[in-house]
């Protein structure tokens, strides 16, 4: 049985941590297995890998130590929408989810389209007292309006980690091309939200059986695939003369997109992508009232009405998200992409909303799932179902996003002796209930409310300081 002994106080430098007989995962060194770790005064003192009889009985079903997670895509709503989330509450939620670095999207009000807004975000992060690293993207275009380029150079100088008009695609291929060229000069990626809006006007749910039966306007898979194909074609054109150009496609959700990225990578193009935890587990059937994971929907043509899978009321607005939850077959394709490395990273697209914006008719509800705290739990469900190895999930939450951030990530990922501790510890054998009390985010817009998810996070340490400490019963087994 693993033991975690710690002398810690939230927010303070971690004085002493001694984890014995746990399962360590270090994607940076590619190593995973039974081990022990000691942290003293905020630094990793010793990492010991156990083998032989010492390792007996230690399996990845109990206490697990991994590097702190990096979220490439989150919305903390500050400035402008502080009722939904602030940088302080978002950071607390991130730490509860095991994340020690978050990359915020610039669709705030005002948008992060000039350096002053980015500086204000950095100041709010410092003032929050949280050790979670808050990084941010700048907008690609002024006001995210899709026309004139934002102050890309100034944003880069102020520390922007890349550029995105997320929430919207970069609408014009011409603007995208110029943005890729200009950002390449700054050595930063363009992060696109791929959506061909000519196909998605008024869309409410994935175009498919569920939307047809429920009378919801469909968001077709082709709208994402068309945008991904366009983006890749523009990238290919740009890299011919500017090899530093980089394109990252965020929250891919359909099989066709994964396939396009797989082929683009095979052709050597500098494209990367991420998928959200909800697109790796949940499906559009949930909107009809099903509550089974994608891999539980059997057969090539599942139909929750026919399968008697409807156990909840339909039209739950916590399931309204952009891109929408897709068919089981799309989820399986995203999982396959994660397994084979086509998917570089898992990013939460944490999108907290207020009640006012969600307790309304489905078609009027804001898009988004508050997901930074439930990411690990959903992914562990996929691991438990044999859909993806645990090590691959942890890599996609750590070294995967770190590679995309490159030198913009202030500290290297890994359980590195002598380095400031940046790690998270969770108990894969313990479940926690997702509810309005357990969530640290102000956004309670989660379709998982009321469910018990595996993988209770016990401790998150960012840059040597305690970001999250589980206050549950210390006598818990």
């Amino acid at each position: 049985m693993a033991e975690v002994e710690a002398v810690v106080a939230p927010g303070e430098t971690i004085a002493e941590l001694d984890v014995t007989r746990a399962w360590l995962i270090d994607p940076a060194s590619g190593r995973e297995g039974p081990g022990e770790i000691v942290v003293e005064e905020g630094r990793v003192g010793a990492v010991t890998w156990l083998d032989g009889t010492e390792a007996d009985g230690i399996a990845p079903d109990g206490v697990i130590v991994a590097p702190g997670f990096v979220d490439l895509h989150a919305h903390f709503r500050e400035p402008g929408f502080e009722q939904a989330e602030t940088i302080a509450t978002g950071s607390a939620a991130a730490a509860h989810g095991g994340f020690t670095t978050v990359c915020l999207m610039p669709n705030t009000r005002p948008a992060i389209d000039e350096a002053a807004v980015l500086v204000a975000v950095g100041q709010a992060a410092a003032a929050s007292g949280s050790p979670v690293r808050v990084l941010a993207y700048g907008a690609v275009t002024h006001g995210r309006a899709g026309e004139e380029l934002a102050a890309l150079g100034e944003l880069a100088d102020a520390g922007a980690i890349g550029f995105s008009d997320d929430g919207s695609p970069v609408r014009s291929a011409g603007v995208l091309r110029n943005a890729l060229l200009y950002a390449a000069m700054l050595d930063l990626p363009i992060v696109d939200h791929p959506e061909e809006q000519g196909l998605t006007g008024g869309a409410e749910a994935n175009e498919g059986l569920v939307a047809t039966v429920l009378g919801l306007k469909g968001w077709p898979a082709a709208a994402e695939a068309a945008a991904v194909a366009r983006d890749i074609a523009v990238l290919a054109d740009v890299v011919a003369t500017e090899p530093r150009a980089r394109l990252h496609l965020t929250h891919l959700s359909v099989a066709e997109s994964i396939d396009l990225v797989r082929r683009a990578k095979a052709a050597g193009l500098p494209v990367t992508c991420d998928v959200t935890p909800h697109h790796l587990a949940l499906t559009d059937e949930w909107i009809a009232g099903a509550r089974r994971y994608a891999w539980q929907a059997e057969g090539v043509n599942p139909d929750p009405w026919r399968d008697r899978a409807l156990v909840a009321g339909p039209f739950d607005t916590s399931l309204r998200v952009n891109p929408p939850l897709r068919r089981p077959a799309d989820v399986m394709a995203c999982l396959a992409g994660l397994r084979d490395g086509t998917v570089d990273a898992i990013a939460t697209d944490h999108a907290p909303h207020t009640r006012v914006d969600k307790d309304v008719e489905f078609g009027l509800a804001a898009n988004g799932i508050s997901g930074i705290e439930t990411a690990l739990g959903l992914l562990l469900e996929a691991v438990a179902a044999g859909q993806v190895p645990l090590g691959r999930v942890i890599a996609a939450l750590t070294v995967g996003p770190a590679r995309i951030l490159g030198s913009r990530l202030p500290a290297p990922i890994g359980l590195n002796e002598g380095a400031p501790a940046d790690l998270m510890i969770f108990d894969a054998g313990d479940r926690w209930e997702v509810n309005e009390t357990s969530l640290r985010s102000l956004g309670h817009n989660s379709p998982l409310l009321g469910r018990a998810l595996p993988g209770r996070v016990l401790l998150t340490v960012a840059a040597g300081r305690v970001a999250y400490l589980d206050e549950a019963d210390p006598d818990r087994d």
Partner: protein
Amino acid sequence: MSLTIEPAGTSAAEASLPAPRWRHRHLLDLDGLDWSEIEVLLRTAEDMRGVLARPIARVPALRGRTVTILFYEASTRTRVSFEVAAKNLSADVVNITASASSVSKGESLVDTVRTIESLGANMLVMRHATSGAPYLAAETFSGSVVNGGDGWHAHPSQGLLDLFTMRRHLGDLRGRKVAIVGDILHSRVARSNIWALTAAGAELWLCGPATLLRGFEAWAGSWRGTAGGPDGRKGFVVTSDLRAALRDADVVMTLRIQRERQAGGLLPSLREYAARFGITRERLRGARPDALVMHPGPMNEGVEIAPDVAVGSGSVISEQVRNGVAVRMAILHLLSGTLAGSTAPVEGTARG
């Protein structure tokens, strides 16, 4: 399980109409009803037709109850039909016509429903332009919610009255061919008829321009396999071949084509629609000679239906309207049996 309604004036039974066993507190869609439940509704509607035939078509089933009719979309026939039905059952009726624009002005549906409840409503009949809106109301409202039409999703009372009308003329619908022609994609009437008619065992055909059928082929395909549809339903046919859809049909139902479909790029023009899909006397010759002609209204005569067909020998369009009152009386009566003060078992989820 037949409902008996005592003749007017026979004292004791007046105060306590026997309610058949009915477990659903709300009627939001027909997808959650099995055939035996639909039969209870149809039999109750038959009894209500008997009430309507009386000189004074009024029974005290809902005396002391308040039915609030909340419509966010313009409607005459459905709103008035529910109002007449509720009044025939001696309910107090409150009519609220909310403009769709008030939704965007920040008046939340949840607040509106809370207000209606505070004002004493026991039953809420609502129409809304957004699919699923009545489910949100049902989560908040402690009484019964009846869906009077939500977005493209469902119009259960219309599906039931269509089924009721067909059964009165044709009896058992198993093996009878019903062709629904028009804008299937945007039609809550079509969706509710899919559930009602497949439950009844009819041979259902959906027909229209390809742009207005999108997604329904996949739905039909999902039910065509060996497993069939829910409750072993055998599914339906989706086609743009009007001649095939009408061939030997027992029922031809046309749906309203809205002008917006042209502006939305789904149709070249209403004129072209009429030329290709309008139900004319000539085209109707392909159907059975005694085929019923139905339309949920309001009609665009000369577009989806020729004026002479609308009033022709097979037309039961006016009868649909009359039957609508009986069916809605049946719905309100059965649901009221699940409310507080009633002894009937209640299933209170939004799906119920």
